[in-house]
């Protein structure tokens, strides 16, 4: 199949691995930001092919994983109300809040529906004029244009029974938070290609110059990731720190202007709490005043609802790249995809879920070898 097979080609992968091996002279730690990349790395086995000197850390780019527990609790409070149809992407339903998850609310009689696109909720709102329809607006810059379109269209259609619970987050501030945290060991980033396809990569220039780390905008196919690793290692070995674009077939420097326009029309930048990372300044999107009537937090009066995160789960350290899933004492024992203690075990893009699914076999031996996955 075109545009897929050529990026999974065995021969080309072998050549890239050889090139990476050739230029790598010392240990480097780089982080792939996006959960989709983490998933691809483990599924295709890239971590086993690249030199042992390269340590891949898995970043915070999983929208399900980073949604703060208090937002889950607010979602649960809204979804439990009579007369509400609560719409969400499927993965969010199983993320534990303080006391339960959305799936339990559904079992208790709540009308919670899985949707594939935010704008699906417009049809639901239109067909159910006597009920309140709420969409859980999660995700990064990638989902923001579609979520903004939902609100924009709701206004155009004068839909009074539709609102959005905003949990939207932004990637560059999280990368800065990781770099400026004490004990950071990230030396370079594979930036999330899909995020950049929307907002471009100008924002990374100041991160590169401030922290002196290479950032390579990278795609999601195995060869994209291998090339992204190669470009990052090449910069590190040569002592360079620049923004480079591996994912040129999808990403332009300026991004998608149309998408940015609709985001600018509907959202403004606010401080946001992240699961595992805490409050990060200017890292979230909220509805601007003009669209405040569509804000579910205001409509249902749940803005004051706060919650503290569980201390059992080390997903915060995993999302910051300070720990790997197998460093967690309950990984694969008390915490599994069937009974997740934290969000990183829920979403298929979560690092713990990816390790569990593709690497479970080696759990014990990996732990004993002190975290090195290769012999």
């Amino acid at each position: 199949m075109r545009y897929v097979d050529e990026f999974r080609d065995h021969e080309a992968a072998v050549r890239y691995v050889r090139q990476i091996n050739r230029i790598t002279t010392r240990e480097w730690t780089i982080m792939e930001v996006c959960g989709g990349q983490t998933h691809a790395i483990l599924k295709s086995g890239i971590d086993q092919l690249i030199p042992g000197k390269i340590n891949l850390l898995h970043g915070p780019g999983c929208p399900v994983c980073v949604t703060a527990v208090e937002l889950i609790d607010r979602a649960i409070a809204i979804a439990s109300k009579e007369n509400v149809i609560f719409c969400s992407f499927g993965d969010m339903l199983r993320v534990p809040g303080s006391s339960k998850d959305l799936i339990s609310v559904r079992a208790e009689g709540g009308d919670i529906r899985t949707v594939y696109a935010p704008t699906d909720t417009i049809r639901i709102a239109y067909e159910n004029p006597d009920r309140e329809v709420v969409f859980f607006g999660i995700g990064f810059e990638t989902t923001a244009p579609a979520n903004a379109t939902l609100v924009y269209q709701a206004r155009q259609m004068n839909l009074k029974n539709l609102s959005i619970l905003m949990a939207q987050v932004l990637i560059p501030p999280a990368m800065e938070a990781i770099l400026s945290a004490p004990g950071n060991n990230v030396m370079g980033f594979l930036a999330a290609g899909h995020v950049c396809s929307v907002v471009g990569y100008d924002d990374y220039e100041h991160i590169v110059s401030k922290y002196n780390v290479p950032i390579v905008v990278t795609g999601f196919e195995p060869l994209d990731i291998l090339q992204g690793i190669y470009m990052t290692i090449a910069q590190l070995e040569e002592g360079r720190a620049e923004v480079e674009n591996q994912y040129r077939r999808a990403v332009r420097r300026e991004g998608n202007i149309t998408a940015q326009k609709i985001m600018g029309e509907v959202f403004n930048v606010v401080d946001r709490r992240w699961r595992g990372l805490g409050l990060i300044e200017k890292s979230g999107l909220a509805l601007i005043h003009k669209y405040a009537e569509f804000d579910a937090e205001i409509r249902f009066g749940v803005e004051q609802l706060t919650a503290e995160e569980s201390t059992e789960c080390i997903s915060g350290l995993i999302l910051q790249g300070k720990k790997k899933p197998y460093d967690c004492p309950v990984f694969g024992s008390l915490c599994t995809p069937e009974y997740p203690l934290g969000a990183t075990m829920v979403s298929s893009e979560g690092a713990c879920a990816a390790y569990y699914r593709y690497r479970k076999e080696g759990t014990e031996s990996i732990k004993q070898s002190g975290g090195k996955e290769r012999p």
Partner: protein
Amino acid sequence: MSDNEYSGLSCPIPISEYPHVLLAHGGGGKLMHQLIEKIFTATFANPMLETAHDGAVFKADSDRLAFTTDSYVVDPLFFPGGDIGKLAVDGTVNDLAMCGARPLYLSCGFIIEEGFSMDSLWKIALSMKQAADEAKVSIVTGDTKVVDKGRGHGLFINTAGIGSIGHDLTIAPSMVQPGDAVIVNGDIGRHGMAIMAHRESLSFETTIESDCAPLADTVMRLLDEDIEIHCLRDLTRGGLAASLVEIASVSGYRIAVEESKIPVVDQVRGACEILGFDPTYVANEGRMVIFVPKKEAEKALAVLRDQGLWPEAAIIGRVGDERTGIVTMKSLIGAERIVDMLSGEQLPRIC
């Protein structure tokens, strides 16, 4: 259902009389008898059913029998490539075939929601008859219930089946041996993606049709050719991955497959790529894995491909001698990873 020998027939219960199933159709009175006689007995027509007895009485031609049951709750009831009736016959026939049995008789229980279209019920009954004829089984006993509107989802069907075993092989996951070849009879993932596309109104350039098909004939052919089958498993919910994981776990041996050898048609691959699905976890209804000794693998493949029966049949891996009970897959770029069951259903990626 389309283009079959029954198309063109019209529902024997005139639509002007009862266009929808009433609660009374399950009430034990005249209406119920009329429904059973005109829709079911007349369609499934066979001497055992016509005795109108409480059960079917028959002689078996073997002292080894296989017995299985399954319930069908698919939504939508009609989908590209099949419907709930075909599924209810093929699914149970296939479960018998996986035991190495030749399917003989099926029972059929209908749970119908009040208000269900009589014409749809008739179409589904015809589809079951056609599927039963194709699989050479008879529907010999049944049951009909009607539940209040809102307490069903249109129609649920349960079928149970009995088959006879005319050979001495034990076909089971515990018989899997190191060195066995793992064969799949065709490309995977069509049924799940057909249902998904139809249910969620996802349209692709070409319609993906379900792979719903009976497998008993194929299994009988393999047995007739004296192929020493160690294990058979039809790939239903959970897909190829779940079936292999179950077999590996019971047999105790490692099953190693290669991603590049697993047949998936471009339509299914494309749809999976768009949604972020892995075809190895997508449901099938006419696909199976076959474990045979390595020396018989090519012969088995030739039987499968003979007369264009299963042209896409392929050897996708082998059983290793490591007693780890896991499934591993060599990825397209050449690295190896574990294959596990999913904890629930696959969900489309978010971004």
